[in-house]
């Protein structure tokens, strides 16, 4: 940590890949392609004579499994083998005809570069390679098994759309297009990952989203040097500002409606090929405490629930620490009768309060982890065992006092109300810090812990936007959608901290 990191100018993976291919015999021929992509079992090379003419040889290259073979047979192979127009053509004419007439296909491209052609094949296209003219025509013929659009599993909502993102990028962009029909919606694509060559789409609305945020997102995505993008963490970790913070800094959602609402607010959406979760940047603390149903129910009700959620955040963070502080240091803070019953409940428990609390917290974390790992029907058993063993038996065995069980269960229930899982996890970690500090120094330690958290939050920035964004502002109008939600009619401006080009939400 004492050495300055040497800065090197790395080439992006795409550039390296392209360069490498250009260095080799960069002529677009079927043999070069075959050299490049080695001998994989699923890559099919198939030589065909157009219309039976031996002079018009073409190689059909595609990857089995990625390509809709029925469609290929029907709309590509059948025409080029049977079409009478090809009879007296030279090979150049054939390429021209393929491009402009003859075949019934929408997405087709003429490729003259080897790398482009190989990338197309890898992405699920059928390539017709004409060795003689060093040209290829690629047809987007993706046809693979995909999951249908299902209900969201993690963010459920009573009122509102039931669709969720799936693993296929194109389907996801189409879902967004169906919701936001303005021509200003821009979906840009870039490729991330040296080996996986994952497509990542950046979604924003031209004329609303701040240009600098878009540029920053693109820059950070292009700078990713990862080998592959299999999990979402690869991209998330690379593009956030503070890697060493447990708190999430970009919002993750699997709901297209939430994604679109954020994009409309002036944020930038990121969709990754192969992942049903999408990102929205920049993330602010406020976002992680907004439930999916906040916008679909009465504003008074959602304001009350949101206020409660903020309170519960404080509860889940501080309650165990507060219990330790008042039972070990500040006994005068407890009402006398409560103090007596806590004393009575601790009678016979050999451990000091903080050991009890930490023991119970660890037991709770273990239960949560166990519940996640196991299949659904077994995880119920874990809950029962946990409730019996940790709750009842531990109390009866005088390992913990019933008061601690109550405190920890209240903490646990409060932590389950957090809408964002990543945020909840970060609170879990910080809870331990506060527990340790308050077992060392009581309420003094508790306040130091909370202050450290506040300092940490205040220091953080996400794509140039302060993490505590609307709360650190002096403008009270920005608080319209924070601790409470005003009716939509009074939220006539987009969040100011996003510095949107078009500030007004309502005309």
């Amino acid at each position, binding site marked *: *940590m*004492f050495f300055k990191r040497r800065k090197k100018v790395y080439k992006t993976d795409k550039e390296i890949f392209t360069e490498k291919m250009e260095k080799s015999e960069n002529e677009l021929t079927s043999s070069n392609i075959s050299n490049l992509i080695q001998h994989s079992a699923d890559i099919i090379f198939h030589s065909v004579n157009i219309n039976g003419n031996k002079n018009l040889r073409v190689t059909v290259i595609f990857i089995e499994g990625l390509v809709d073979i029925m469609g290929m047979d029907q709309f590509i192979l059948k025409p080029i083998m049977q079409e009478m127009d090809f009879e007296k053509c030279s090979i150049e004419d054939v390429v021209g005809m393929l491009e402009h007439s003859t075949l019934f296909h929408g997405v087709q491209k003429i490729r003259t570069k080897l790398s482009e052609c190989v990338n197309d094949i890898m992405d699920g296209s059928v390539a017709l390679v004409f060795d003689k003219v060093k040209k290829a025509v690629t047809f987007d013929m993706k046809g693979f098994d995909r999951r249908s659009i299902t209900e969201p599993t993690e963010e459920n909502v009573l009122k509102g759309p039931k669709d969720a993102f799936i693993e296929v990028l194109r389907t996801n962009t189409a879902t967004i297009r169906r919701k936001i029909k303005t021509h200003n919606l821009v979906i840009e694509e870039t490729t991330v990952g040296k080996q996986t060559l994952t497509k990542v789409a950046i979604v924003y609305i031209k004329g609303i989203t701040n240009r600098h945020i878009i540029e920053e997102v693109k820059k950070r995505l292009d700078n990713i040097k990862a080998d592959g993008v299999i999990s979402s963490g690869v991209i998330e970790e690379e593009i956030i500002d503070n890697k060493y913070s447990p708190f999430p800094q970009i919002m993750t959602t699997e709901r297209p409606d939430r994604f679109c609402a954020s994009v409309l607010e002036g944020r930038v959406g990121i969709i990754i090929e192969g992942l049903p979760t999408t990102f929205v940047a920049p993330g602010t603390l406020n976002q992680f405490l907004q439930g999916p149903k906040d916008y679909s129910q009465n504003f008074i009700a959602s304001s009350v629930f949101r206020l409660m959620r903020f309170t519960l955040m404080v509860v889940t963070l501080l309650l165990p620490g507060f219990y330790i502080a008042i*039972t*070990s*240091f500040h*006994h*005068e803070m*407890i009402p*006398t009768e409560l*103090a*007596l*019953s*806590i*004393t*009575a*409940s*601790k*009678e016979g*428990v050999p451990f*000091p*309060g903080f050991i009890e609390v930490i023991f119970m917290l660890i037991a709770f974390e273990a239960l949560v982890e166990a519940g996640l790992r196991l299949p659904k029907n077994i995880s119920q058993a874990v809950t029962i065992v946990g409730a019996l063993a940790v709750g009842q038996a531990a109390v*009866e065995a005088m390992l913990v006092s*019933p008061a601690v069980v109550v405190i920890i269960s209240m903490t646990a229930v409060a932590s389950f109300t957090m809408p964002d899982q990543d945020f909840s996890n970060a609170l879990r970690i910080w809870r331990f810090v506060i527990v340790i500090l308050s077992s060392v*120094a*009581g309420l*003094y330690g508790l306040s130091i812990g909370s202050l450290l958290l506040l300092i940490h939050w205040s220091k953080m920035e996400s794509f140039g936007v302060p993490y505590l964004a609307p709360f650190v502002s002096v403008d009270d109008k920005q608080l319209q959608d924070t601790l409470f939600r005003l009716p939509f009619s009074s939220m006539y401006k987009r969040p100011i901290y996003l510095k949107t080009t078009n500030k007004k939400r309502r005309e």
Partner: protein
Amino acid sequence: MRKKILLSILLIFTLSFTACNTPPISRHEINDLEFIRSIAIDTSKSIPDGVRLTMASKRLDVSGGGSSGEKKSTKVSSEGRTMFEAVRNFSTFLDKKPFWGHLEYVVIGEEAAKKGIYNYLDFFARDHEVRMNIYVFIMKGCCAEDLMQKADRSDRFVFDRLKGLIHSMDGQSVSNPVNLIEVMYIQDLKALSLYIPCVEMVNVTGGEDEDVTDIKMAGFAIFEKGKLVGFLDEDMGRGLNLLRNEMKSGIYVVNTPKGSKVSLEVINSKTKFYPEIKDGNLFLKVKVNMDSNIGEIDSNEDIFDNEVFTFLEQEQSRGRNFKGGTK
């Protein structure tokens, strides 16, 4: 980075070497503490000029394993030459560390009060654990230890009784609770003598023809320079409350011209002072404005006309007809 390390070292040092003794903040588990709820102060019999303290506290006993805890009362006495010494001597008789943060009631025996109360209360005012809003009582007639020993029963703890007395004071206005902070405040006033509510032991005939000792409010104890000089009975106590403008409620029983008894409930009372100088002497005219409800009439007499009302008002203003108590 180096700055950060230096800064954190500095922070650790500043936090650990504060002016507080090591360990900076003392940690005591809650079940290692004895919560003292009330304390009785008397003169010591064995040590000349000494202090005898008796404390009462409550414990919940859950040895049965169930949630319904049996309440047990703990009473311990200790003696010392001074208050502080006696307080420290408590810990030799207790299995837990005495904790004074939950102290609510201090009862001072009559004999001790005659010697002066400030030397007893000084400890409470100085000690950091004791709250300043604890209630002070004077035990009329006997020593305060008797109160702790006799009036304390397993179903009715002495501090619960004292709490009940404080709650019932507003309804009768024969006395008024006084906090430690008020005692300290009155001490500094030159024009006001210290008054502290006093309690008295009475024998109540219980259900099974058995005398049960209970306590009741008995007006005020009046102090001069910190020493007990006399008592005000219930009627005079109500008078003091009127003068202090602290009359909240109370029942006046008056007779109508025809002889039926009417209970008047005070619902509002305001006292104003009008100082005037007559023949070079300062006189204080006290004007009491009192609103009453007719709470009860013991006959079917029609009293609802102005003449009877005026008569009743006059009867009430004569006062001195409080017959309270449980005797």
